[in-house]
């Protein structure tokens, strides 16, 4: 297991050598343009990345060029195509906003640069203890090949002007949907958010949720998912357009909530609805909450491809993203509204005050309304669920 080793390394490395290496990285990074491949469907994120680019240029002479993806796998495909062509350096992708299956797939094929997390000075603000959420991506140890940048947690959003009592469990969601046919749906399961919704249901409905933490086998998969499919068979005909078609992703679903086509949206970001209200994209009567049993949470990471042309620049960007000032900026709902990935215990007083002073909003769930954070299942579950769903419900 390399994980404890890395954690020990990060904690024990003598600071001076560390600083020297880092200053070399910073010097090499000067003047580089980092092509950051990140999902481009969210204007707030795009604006945040543009803001970060301005700050980095002033401080380090590094600029970010965001490559807006409609799906993260596009970046993976690009690196694969470059490897196919023998382009082992000077690649076009410098950094990827990545998670779960995409990370696993790149890591297994040796398409990632690293480990580099330990080289970042700001990694000292992370909880680097064994099994910490900052070092595990969908149960896969990141082993320093990824650096965290934002916290994600599954929430449902509804319009309180149309829904009085939102369902607090998957079973009551089924009842609600039966009573209000055509008013609920989820993003397509080929999309990350749609699959996350099914995983959320799976954790609630599985006879033994603990089996989800290890790689799925034929036997464990069919045992764990049997109640899920029974529940889904009942739910599907009550969905929007009878569950025959689905919105492409959560942004489209949010737009449908705004248009009144459905009564619920979902997000992997508790502040998404509050931020959307601020931007005039949702009515100010929307509220977000997590199911009573808690909801899936994970940390989003950035990784650097093995053939990236601007590795040093990418590391400077990754380090900048871990800066407490950057994280506080990101948590501001008027900016990004994405919860901090840092360990509060490791922050100094000035940083703590910056977090305390952030503005609030009625559409922003209080911490109590967010409930417990449930662990992501092993990535094999997501892949299998998506495949099984496609097999069962694609006509």
């Amino acid at each position, binding site marked *: 297991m390399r994980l404890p080793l890395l954690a020990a390394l990060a904690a024990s490395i003598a600071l001076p050598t560390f600083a020297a290496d880092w200053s070399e990285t910073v010097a090499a990074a000067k003047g580089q343009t980092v092509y950051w491949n990140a999902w481009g469907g969210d204007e707030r994120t795009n604006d945040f990345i543009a803001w970060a680019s301005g700050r980095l240029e002033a401080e380090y002479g590094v600029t970010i060029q965001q490559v807006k993806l*409609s799906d993260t796998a596009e970046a993976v*495909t690009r690196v694969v195509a470059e490897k196919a062509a023998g382009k082992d350096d000077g690649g076009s992708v410098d950094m990827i906003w990545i998670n779960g299956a995409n990370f696993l*797939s790149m890591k297994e094929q040796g398409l990632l640069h690293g480990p580099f997390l330990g080289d970042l000075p700001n990694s000292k603000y992370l909880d680097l203890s064994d099994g910490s959420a900052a070092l595990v991506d969908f149960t896969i140890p990141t082993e320093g090949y990824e650096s965290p940048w934002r916290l994600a947690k599954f929430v449902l959003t509804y319009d309180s002007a*149309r829904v009085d009592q939102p369902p607090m469990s998957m079973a009551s969601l089924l009842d609600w949907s039966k009573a209000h046919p055509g008013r609920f749906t989820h993003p397509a399961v*080929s999309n990350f958010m749609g699959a996350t919704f099914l995983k959320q249901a799976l954790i609630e409905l599985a006879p033994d949720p603990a089996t989800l933490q290890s790689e799925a086998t034929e036997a464990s998969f069919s045992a764990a998912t049997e109640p899920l499919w029974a529940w889904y068979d009942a739910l599907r005909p009550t969905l929007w357009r009878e569950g025959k078609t689905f919105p492409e992703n959560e942004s489209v679903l949010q*737009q449908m909530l705004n*248009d009144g*086509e459905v009564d619920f949206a979902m997000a992997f970001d508790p502040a998404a609805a509050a931020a959307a209200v601020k931007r005039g994209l949702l009515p100010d009567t929307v509220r977000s909450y997590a199911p009573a049993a808690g909801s899936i949470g994970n940390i989003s990471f950035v990784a650097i491809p093995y053939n990236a042309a601007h590795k040093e620049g990418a590391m400077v960007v990754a380090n900048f993203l871990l800066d407490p000032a950057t994280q506080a900026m990101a948590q501001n709902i008027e900016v990004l509204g994405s919860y901090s990935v840092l360990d509060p215990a490791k922050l100094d007083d000035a940083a703590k005050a910056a977090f305390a002073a952030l503005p609030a909003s009625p559409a922003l769930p209080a911490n109590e309304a967010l409930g417990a954070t449930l662990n992501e299942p092993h990535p094999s579950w997501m892949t299998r669920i998506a495949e099984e769903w496609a097999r069962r419900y*694609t006509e």
Partner: protein
Amino acid sequence: MTHREGRALRLIVLFTVLAGFVLPIVAGLWETARAAFGILPAIGAGEWSLAPWRQLFGLPGFGTSVALTLWVGFGSTIISLLLASGLCALIHGRKWARARAGRVLAPFLAAPHAALAIGLAFLLSPSGWIARLLSPWATGWNLPPDIATVNDPMGFSLIIGLLIKEVPFLFLMMMTALTQIPAENHLRAGRALGYARGLVWIKIILPQIYPLIRLPVFVVLSFALSVVDMAIILGPSNPPTLAVAMTRWFYSADIGLLLPASAAALLQSVIVLLAIGVWLLAEGIATRIGRLWVRRGGRGMVSGPFLAVAGAVTGALMLAGALALASLLVWSFAWRWSFPGFLPESWSMQAWLRPGAGWGAAFAESFGIGLCATLISILIAIAWLEGEDRAGMRRVGWAEGLIYLPLLVPQVAFLYGLSVAMLGVGLGNGRATVIWGHVLFVFPYVMVALSDPWRALDRRMVGQAATLGAGPWRRLWAVKLPILLAPILVAAAIGFAVSVAQYLPTLFLGAGRIATLTTEAVTLSSGSDRRVVGVYAVLQAALPFASYLAAWWVPRMIYRDRAGLNGGRG
């Protein structure tokens, strides 16, 4: 001497076209084919095998995807052909109607597919503009109904979107073809024999112009069978058409899907080839039936209603297209706009006031790439046509096919392979590659637009210049180009519009790094902010319109005092 010079010029052009257009398409298809049969070293696949095909046939929804593709492809092509013919029959011989129809339809030719699709998606959706216009007073809907209008499983909304683009294209192609046959005489003769006006057109003129528009029809068929951007926005999603499913597989988290995706890309080419074959067969059958029908000699007083329907449907389609584009403009100035409000509750300039947020750079990128691709294409086209002139030869069939080749081979089939091949020979994926990728698709349209005006040039002018001692280059510079300025600019405007609309070539050849208005609009259309999408789509549509206006205005300004050089319009 002229002939030898002509031959050299022709050889240079031929070489450019072969090396620049044909070779890359073949190389792209080759790489795609290798991957389809299991060879893609990047993911450790190095053995010839049929496994990708078995995997492809086993993918959920594969059969439905293929069926949808055929239905949408043939359906939209046949309907556009019928509508375009009906419209031609309806207005042929009425000069004012012809001019007006051309003016009304040309903008739809210029409007990019993506912008039109985004607007239509809003117009037609259950919470869209039409529903808002009628709600709640007529429909009683306070909340939008749960009806599948856009992204419907049968692909009707996608067909509507394609029709709005293809009917004007075929109509204008037919109008051009009409200038090559003595249509007026035939019409008069037919009328004198007692045939209804529309029927003369269908029975006598259509069979003559059809061979002239056969290639454009195939372009429409191939495009409709393999369209991606419009199908993502308007088409069914579970399962989608084959081209969209394949694009998704290419970009799936599961890298193993690259192989079946390549197989699907190859299958897409086979489908297009077979479709053209089937079409040719059907043509033969239709010709026989048509001949019997013509011989029966019906004077066809009943053809009127069919033509009226064709006219009405076309009118409705164009109205929908215009509303779709208008809705984008309204959205770009909206702040809150919820159902069932016919107009936004609050307005804002916010989306427009922040060019730095992306649309500024994307606008510059689209403009620059479009300009370069158009200039290069115009240069090659003029060289080609001048080469034909100097050699004193008419174009042979295979050369015509060569021009159309990039439009006939589905983009999805060779672009992924091409980007792999490009990287393989050390040509990075950057702006230059994208420009060249655009030229691939701009050049054919420029050639099609420029060929007829070029041939129609009054040869006596050139002859006079020659007797006055002007050499071939001087004749080109001082006589042909000035006279042909107006059609050259029109061809350039068409080329520019084609470039601005390119989605897949920009995406694949630019490694996603080149963000144009089109790629950004398609990406954002799967987001939550219609106001920002509105800005991109409005700009995307505005660029080609501006270029058409310029093409119309510039010759008038330059040749203000010379009616003869003004296309006789001044």
